[in-house]
């Protein structure tokens, strides 16, 4: 007994040594469950430039330093004012007053995470934008974040970063009191791991041969009751579809009545009332009329595929893979569908059947992965692509996303878009325009005391332009509310709004850097009086 116990302990510590996570993995455990080692590696190689050490800026940075970005630089020429010391958690209270704001903030941010590099830079953004060297330096970062820049400086920065599609994305953040918005300027952003919660097709309407053979091999009248209660739902649905096609000229259920009948037929196959696998098949029957060889989202995406000759410099790997995917779908030896998923949902079945069906999907997925790689090699013989990236692409082929953004301010430059936006999303667009008006006035040298609801309203009218029809009452009210609130607090960077934006903007930055999950495309508008957020100004399809 004693000996057993000591052996047990020895063995246990051997296992602990071999498998227990190291301290870095333990520190990051709660986030690695969201973006895994690949996302973490991307974060650790990110270099982020933030154009001030305002309360909002340091709140954003805090949420990027904690998960472990590689490097940040705070660009801020100002010295800490008593007002800054009161609203910014990453300054040393009154002790920081009179000292350079960036240099005061950097150490307090760095102490959140030893592995992050942080630099304080007191140069002026405007003068950097004036010199070639300065511009190159700005472009050397992987992401630029700008809070409350004057409209003029912001336009110059946005212009610079928009020039080439290989330049870093820019996140523009604007806030006043309870009101804020932010925008991601990026040409194209490709997401392989979108972590979509929708189920990928199991290809039940067009089963691969091994799966079809299994379905064919089962005779409901022959199998014993235990086996009958353990037939996995995909097999049940494939068999039912075959039976249905025979009765309906080779078609699957189309009308609602047919779909209902199909489900009834599935459940009628139950030999005993408690056969959960048939209940599950009934519940999953919707797959038989919703699963497509290529979903409509991915079909749209495939129109952006680029053959070898026109492969863009930015995101070239993604575009090459997209082109390969297009070729794969139409390849004579291919399945005529997106590559098969190898991750199956749990099913009401026994271990043996589950392992069997899982193995079938895995083998088929492996074969299709090999075909994909063969096509890739043929289409892009000179391209070197990391094999892990190809595998991830094939695995996530059902959930790929491509964001095609536009330049900061394009929405505001399209008056008709602004006008129709106001009609539909009145409070959201009104809030956005009120902020645009505020920063326009600032950039024309307006003193904060001269900001009134009237001066903002006049600027809003200029931005929106004279509409042929008068604005309706709801739009009027929305604009009054937004300009009134902005006029109340034209220069307020209040801690709760800063923290709220700090979280939202950091989430988007993480999505951009890891290329996982899906960032916004448009202006995210925040109103903490009404406690709501909204999205406006998405580029027209």
């Amino acid at each position: 007994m004693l000996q057993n116990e000591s052996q047990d302990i020895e063995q246990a510590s051997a296992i602990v040594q071999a498998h227990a996570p190291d301290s870095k993995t333990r520190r990051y455990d709660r986030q690695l469950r969201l973006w895994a080692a690949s996302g973490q590696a991307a974060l650790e190689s990110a270099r982020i430039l933030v154009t001030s050490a305002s309360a909002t800026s340091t709140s954003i940075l805090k949420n990027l330093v904690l998960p472990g970005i590689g490097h940040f630089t705070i660009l801020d020429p100002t010295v800490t004012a008593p007002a800054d010391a009161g609203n910014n958690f990453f300054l040393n209270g009154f002790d920081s007053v009179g000292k350079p704001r960036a240099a005061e903030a950097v150490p307090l941010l760095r102490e959140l995470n030893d592995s992050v590099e942080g630099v304080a830079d007191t140069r002026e953004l405007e003068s950097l934008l004036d010199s070639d060297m300065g511009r190159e330096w700005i472009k050397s970062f992987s992401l630029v974040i700008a809070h409350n820049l004057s409209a003029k400086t912001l336009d110059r920065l946005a212009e610079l970063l928009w020039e080439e599609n290989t330049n870093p994305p820019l996140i523009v953040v604007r806030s006043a009191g309870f009101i804020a918005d932010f925008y991601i300027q990026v040409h194209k952003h490709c997401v392989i791991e979108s972590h979509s919660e929708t189920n990928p097709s199991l290809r039940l309407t067009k089963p691969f041969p091994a799966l079809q053979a299994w379905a064919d091999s089962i005779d409901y009248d022959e199998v014993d009751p235990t086996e009958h209660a353990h037939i996995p739902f995909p097999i049940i649905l494939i068999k039912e579809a075959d039976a249905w096609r025979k009765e309906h000229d080779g078609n699957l259920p189309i009308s609602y009545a047919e779909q209902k009948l199909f489900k009834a037929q599935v459940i009628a196959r139950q030999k005993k009332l408690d056969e959960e696998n048939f209940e599950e098949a009934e519940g999953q029957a919707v797959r038989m009329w919703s699963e497509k060889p290529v979903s409509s989202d991915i079909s749209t995406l495939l129109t952006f595929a680029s053959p070898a000759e026109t492969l863009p410099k930015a995101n070239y790997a993604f575009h090459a893979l997209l082109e390969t995917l297009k070729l794969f779908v139409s390849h004579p030896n291919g399945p005529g569908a997106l590559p098969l998923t190898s991750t199956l949902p749990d099913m009401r079945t026994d271990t043996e059947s589950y392992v069997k069906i899982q193995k079938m999907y895995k083998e088929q997925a492996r074969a299709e992965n090999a075909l994909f790689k063969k096509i890739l090699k043929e289409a892009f013989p000179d391209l070197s692509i990391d094999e892990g990236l190809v595998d991830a692409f094939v695995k996530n082929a059902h959930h790929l996303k491509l964001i095609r953004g536009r330049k900061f301010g394009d929405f505001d430059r399209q008056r008709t878009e602004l006008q129709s936006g106001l009609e539909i999303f009145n409070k959201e667009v009104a809030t956005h325009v009120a902020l645009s008006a505020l920063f326009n006035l600032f950039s024309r040298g307006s003193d904060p005391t001269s900001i009134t609801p009237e001066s903002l309203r006049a600027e809003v009218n200029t931005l929106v332009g004279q509409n042929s029809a008068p604005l309706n009452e709801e739009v009027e009210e929305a604009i009054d509310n937004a300009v009134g609130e902005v006029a109340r607090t034209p220069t307020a960077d209040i801690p709760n709004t800063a923290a709220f934006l700090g979280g939202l903007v950091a989430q988007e930055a993480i999505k951009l850097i890891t290329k996982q999950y899906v960032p916004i495309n448009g202006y995210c508008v925040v109103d903490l009086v009404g406690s709501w957020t909204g999205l406006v100004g998405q580029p027209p399809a």
Partner: protein
Amino acid sequence: MAESTMANGNANTSDWQDRYYHVDQVLDRPGPRTDPSFAAGEGVKDFLRNKCKILVIGAGGLGCEILANLALTGFKDIHVIDMDTIDISNLNRQFLFRPKDVGKPKAIVAAEFIMKRVPGVKVTPYYGKIQDKDDDYYLQFNLVICGLDSVEARRWMNATLVNLVDPENPESLKPLIDGGTEGFKGQARVILPTISSCYECSLDMLNKPTAFPICTIANTPRLPEHCIEWASVLEWPRVHGDKKVDTDDPEHIGWLFQVASKRAREFNIEGVTWSLTQGVVKNIIPAIASTNAIIAASCCNEAFKIATSSAAYLDNYFMLIGTDGVYSYTFQYEKRDDCPVCGGESMDISISKEWTVERLIDTLTERQDIQIKKPSLSSGDMHIYFQAPPQLEQATRPNLEKKVSELVKDGGEITVTATTLPFSLSLRVTFT
């Protein structure tokens, strides 16, 4: 910005000129949607900075953020309760803690940090359980913010604040602001006990915890999770008897991982890893700084609006999903008349005449809108089944096999209690 000449609402020496330059813009004048009752200026600043007393439950992921926001917005008398100590896995988001703090009480370290960073703010920590405190303790606060990850603790806090309400004394109504996060998602809500819907009203909104049927675990495992559950639920007690699994002990996790891996190999199941083993046995919820920042800011913003009337507060639920763009939804969650905490009406339940007391108990523990662990049942003066004390348990145990319909008449009431909850649930039973 230093040119502002706005006066301060406070004689406190730590309040240097312009300290509240930003917040004061909100407090010095109303906005277009501000309620007319808002008294802009010195009065509201004095209340916020010198009189308002606020309680924060939890000094973890949300708690750290909440404390920092409250301190910066001008709350100066803050209390915080947390029973946990700091773990290395907290450091990716609980930004008031450093590696040297691992093992120390969260409430104490967080309070010290805030007081050092934000001068003039008093944070009073309590390292212990919310259940240690009595009604008088909770009555001293103007507001309560909850940043907890435990459903049970929130139910307790919610029920306690609802029970505290004395219609004769308006001061007894303590607004409760509750936040929660999971990965890129979260929610914040404002609960006015007895007036708006409470935490218990919306219990069925919670994600159902993934529970694996015991027969799957024992007989037909398919997923790696099934093998891990087998190791922790069936094998551990078989081998180790009464000794409980310590989910923070790497040797225990190692043992479970090894046993689960062996079972997975036997059944040709792939995917048992150390991380998954730990995730399943500890029921780990992914957590990141940014989501906590959003939700904590939302909670503090509502607290600030309630304390100052500078803007209308949330009525009453804000939810956020950040996985695909930024999606949020602000809505009014409705009060439930049959809410066992704030509703007043009993809950109707229809069961078969044939059901035994045991079956009813099983059903109650499984129902998403009730979620009660180890309930005790009585009807009028009759004890139907009591989990404790042992004598009473023994005396009522034979009732478990009896039919409910033998003990309670059709339309009769059953009172359900549990030691974990500070309220009782009354059920009106009808038989089919």
